């Protein structure tokens, strides 16, 4: 019974890990940083509205560059 439960928890955890982190940990990190920053700049009207989208765009660029096709041998 315990082994069954442990296996179930592991499978559940692995599903969420693959789903949210998978091979793009930088996007999970991006989300964490954006959430943290949103709380830090609490109430700052323009700073939040400008900084959060720019940060998301910057992380997206990094992640996209990480996933690019490379020349053979590089």
């Amino acid at each position, binding site marked *: 019974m315990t082994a069954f439960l442990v296996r179930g928890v592991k499978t559940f955890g692995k599903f969420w890990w693959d789903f949210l982190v998978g091979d793009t940990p930088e996007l999970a990190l991006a989300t964490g940083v954006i*959430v943290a920053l949103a709380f830090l700049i609490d109430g700052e009207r323009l700073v*939040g509205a400008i900084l959060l989208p720019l940060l998301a765009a910057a*992380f997206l660029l990094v992640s*996209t560059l990480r*996933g*690019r096709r*490379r*020349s053979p041998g590089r």
Partner: protein
Amino acid sequence: MHSTSSTIVLVLAVFGASAVEMVEALTIVVAAGVSRGWRSALEGAAAAAVVLGVLVVVVGVPLVRYIPLDALRVVVGALLLVLGLSWLRKAILRSSGHKDLHDEDKIYAETVAELSETGAESGTPGQGRVHPGRDGVAFVVAFKGVFLEGTEVVLIVISLGAAQHRLGLAALAAAAALVVVAAVGLLVSRQLSEVPENTIKTAVGIMLTSFGLFWVGEGAGVNWPGSDLAIPVLIGFFIVVTLAYTAFMRTKLPAPSPEGSAAA
């Protein structure tokens, strides 16, 4: 009171996400139906759709009822953000030639071949040899296909629906996409390889990212200028970002090898 702009984006995002995932699921269901028999394939698909519906009710309703709205918005906003950024990344890599486009024809052919082999092993060989009665393999393959593709849709429905307290509307948009894709699939009786999947995926990625960012900010106390009107502005921003990144990534494609084998 819900603003019209966020309602439209909610419906479009859920409908688009569901349509993309259902096109992928349809390919597997059609492959199972053609190679093993339609009855069990359709039963498997229907069973998975019911389980997904139950998941929306079991997980979504308590979320809406018992979790404080601001906390809910931060959590679902973060979930939407990570999903949206990942969809956008994939779509940009595909549009710019760094990643192969999702090929429904190829997936269909592979699934049919696999199922035909399974049939041959169990003494019921080949494509076209359909089972008149129930077939466990067709049921399981169709169930898995619809369930796995639908899990992401369930998360999007719950996230977008719960954050706006419009779970019913989100579920309805997903159900509408399911009905439309299933009807078209049954009508043409094959996989829908002509659907511009990457374009829809790009659009949905932009909407999920915009919504995610908006809800994270709202939940954390950021006052977006224009309130809900910030959502279309964010969508516009990410459209520009996506177009710019796609063009930029095209310049980063590796040169073709001297032997002439195309890199893209």
